[in-house]
């Protein structure tokens, strides 16, 4: 249930050349629609100032020799590296908290608890649907009360409110997929339930744990509204708010470094996410199945 391939091939039906051409054309249109903004970011990253700021110059290719000036500016004259580092720190801390809270919760709900496990599971899933947009104003008061305003800790505390529900839900699916017999055998062999969980079930759930690590990380590095509301010091910002708020100053757009920064920060997150998208879909569609 958790590992269904979502891009499975069907037996070739489009064998006719014209049909095949139509299929490729339609697919190409969708690919261009999705990827064009990223392609333009890539080209602009290596364009000279003069090239970027000439409205008649081809925006999809170089009108002059490519340059590394935008990257130099981004890495040497802004806090870009600091922002990447902040994002990594918050991500790692959120992953740790999420694992500690979500793994036992998911196992408890999927395996040990009876009927109320299912109900509570749906409740936890529903809490994932409570959007940060609804809560950021009072949440900023809670953060101030805890003395965490303008600190990365504010985000470390806030992000598990959506990573824990989401990851608990994903992991419940994984644990349900592991046959009960395996841990019953382990318990007959002398493990108690806790040690059967630690030594037998967890190693089998490794793909699920990897998924949780990746999603807790990508969700927290993409988060926008809490970071926007809680952190205002330049040096404490994470990448998702730093690029749009620090590299755009008033009406002055440094398009070169701005687009370079957005692209560089996006790609690693997108690559990680893509590897695990099937697990995400399995988790999301499970609400319709169970």
């Amino acid at each position, binding site marked *: 249930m958790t590992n269904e391939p979502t891009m499975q091939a069907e037996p*070739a039906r489009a064998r006719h050349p014209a049909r095949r051409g139509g299929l490729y054309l339609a697919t190409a249109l969708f690919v261009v629609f*999705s990827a064009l903004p990223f392609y333009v970011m890539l080209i602009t990253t290596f364009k000279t100032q003069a090239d970027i700021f000439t409205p008649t110059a081809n925006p999809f290719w170089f009108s002059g020799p490519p340059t590394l000036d935008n990257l130099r500016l981004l890495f040497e004259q802004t806090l870009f590296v600091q922002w990447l580092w902040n994002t990594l720190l918050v991500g790692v801390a959120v992953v740790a908290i999420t694992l500690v809270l979500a793994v036992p*919760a998911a196992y408890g709900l999927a395996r040990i608890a009876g009927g109320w496990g299912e109900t509570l599971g749906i409740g936890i899933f529903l809490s994932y649907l409570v959007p940060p947009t*609804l809560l950021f104003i*009072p949440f900023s*008061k809670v953060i101030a009360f805890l003395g965490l305003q303008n600190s990365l800790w504010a985000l470390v505390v*806030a992000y598990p409110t959506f990573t824990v529900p989401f990851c608990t839900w994903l992991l419940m699916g994984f644990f349900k997929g592991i046959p009960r017999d395996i841990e019953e055998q382990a318990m007959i062999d002398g493990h108690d339930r806790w040690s059967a969980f630690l030594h037998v079930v967890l190693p089998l759930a490794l793909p699920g744990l990897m998924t949780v690590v990746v999603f807790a990380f990508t969700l927290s590095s993409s988060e926008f509204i809490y970071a926007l509301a809680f952190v205002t010091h330049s040096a404490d910002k994470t990448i998702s708010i730093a690029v*749009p708020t620090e590299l755009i100053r008033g009406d002055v757009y440094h*398009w070169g470094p701005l687009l370079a920064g957005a692209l560089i920060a996006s790609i690693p997150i997108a690559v990680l996410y893509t590897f695990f998208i099937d697990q995400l879909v399995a988790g999301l*569609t499970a609400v319709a199945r169970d």
Partner: protein
Amino acid sequence: MARTRSPLSLAQRDTLLALGMVMPAILYITLLLGIPIILAVVYSLNDVTTGGTAMRYIGLENFTALLDTPDFMRAIGNTFNITLSTLVGVLVLGTIQAELLMRPVRGKWLIRFLILLPWTAPASLSAIAWLWMLDSTFSPIDWMLRGMGLLGHPGALFGDFDNTFWLGRSGLALFSIILVNIWRLLPLGTVIILAGLNGVPRDIVEQAQIDGAGYFRRLFQVILPMLIPVFGVTILFTFVFVFTDIATVFILTRGGPANATQVLPTLAFFTGVQGGSLGRGAATALFLLPVLAAVSILTLSLIRRREI
């Protein structure tokens, strides 16, 4: 084992263990989601500002004041307009894209990575790419339109200026926001529908084919009805993610020009955080709650009941 001889039965110990494993997560979520939710309601019923220390109870005054503000009513309209238009776009284009991806093509992993990019990249960063794509002077889209002779001369389809001013004219700005939202949510819709298509038992479809059903008959009478739960999931997540999104509007237009693209989340931010009126801002955001609750409960009960 000797130590299992405890006064509790095995079932009771299992229940205790389950509680012990589940409680930390439940406590964390209830405290850190629960307190802000309660505070949101309290703030919305009080006159409270960032600087001030004392709260003054004013009942429903925040809400009635909002309903008298044209900007607020416009934000409600925009929020629904953007969400529902995006929903239709994602469902239609997502079904087509999923159908296309079912066919074997070369370079599938690259196609897959590129098609997923709008969803997998952080929204606030990809919005910056669109800020450039729709720029008032340098827009690459305008450059293409000029090249095709659709812009920049008298009688041209997109006007005789050299630029379209995508984000500067109210109707176009709203259209642009919807376009970017469809672009961003389309991959999610596609992969969910694709998972549904892959789950349709092939023998049923083949039997329909043997019985003489043509392609469209099979699509509309056999495949699509089986996909209803999957469409429900797509609707649920597209709705929640677009309805509550702040990044797209915040980065592209800040709600402008003249509030033409203001939505409830951005209005709540500008009122509550930048304007400092916590009570008014909290009340603005709270307007999202009944709609979200209704949509979630409706779609969830629909898709869960339909399952055999």
